[in-house]
């Protein structure tokens, strides 16, 4: 069976809900099933990628640490919304990994190409 194009979009800020951890679990499980995965961080979601996160005091897991290892699981299609970085005065150097940036219209194209979208 041909693998499906699964697109996972992260729009919520980290630590705002348990969804961040759930998102990562879905991505890793889909990768284990050898599906074609694309991960896009949009809006507040780009904060997931911020380096120098310290979640110790909150008692919540620091998910940013796990993100660079996504490549090991062959999730290499990781993108970040260009405008969302700009609006927050962030550069890719501030992030735990160096994902390519996408414009909103490129994100729209990616959504169109996907077989299944998980929008968190």
């Amino acid at each position: 069976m041909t693998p499906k194009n699964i697109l996972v979009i992260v729009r919520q800020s980290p630590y705002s809900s348990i969804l961040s951890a759930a998102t990562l679990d879905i991505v890793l499980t889909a990768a284990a099933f050898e599906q074609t995965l694309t991960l896009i961080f949009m809006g507040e979601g780009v904060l997931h990628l911020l380096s120098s996160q310290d979640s110790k005091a909150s008692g919540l897991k620091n998910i940013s640490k796990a993100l660079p290892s996504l490549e090991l699981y062959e999730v290499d299609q990781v993108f970040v919304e260009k405008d969302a970085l700009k609006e927050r005065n962030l550069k890719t150097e501030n992030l735990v990994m160096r994902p390519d940036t996408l414009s909103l219209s490129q994100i729209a194209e990616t959504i169109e190409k996907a077989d299944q979208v998980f929008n968190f």
Partner: protein
Amino acid sequence: MQSFTLVVYGSPDTQAASTAYNFAQALLKAGHQIYRLFFYQDGVFNACSFNTPPQDEENLPASWQTLIQEYDLDAVVCVASALKRGIVNDAEAERYDLAASNLRKGFEISGLGQLIDGVIQSDRVINFLP
């Protein structure tokens, strides 16, 4: 006719869960097939058998059970989400030495792989997030 997997992320008190239930009913009425219901995160509370709401309120978990049994649906509860929230079947209750089990009839506990299998096997996957 299309096949669907519905993913429920909200507890029975959320609109996400009741919309998912109404959508499931509508799908079946329209002759579509539900490949799987997958209950994830707080959605696992839909599979609890201990909830006893006031008489003038709907008991959504009981409604799910009726629907699942009537149409012989595959209803899967994510094991990690369930254990974390205290939803257990007999086997898990015994394994963790818990006072009782509370998984509703019709539901089964399994892994997140069943969600991805749903993505692979069904025509459409619909997510119901609170």
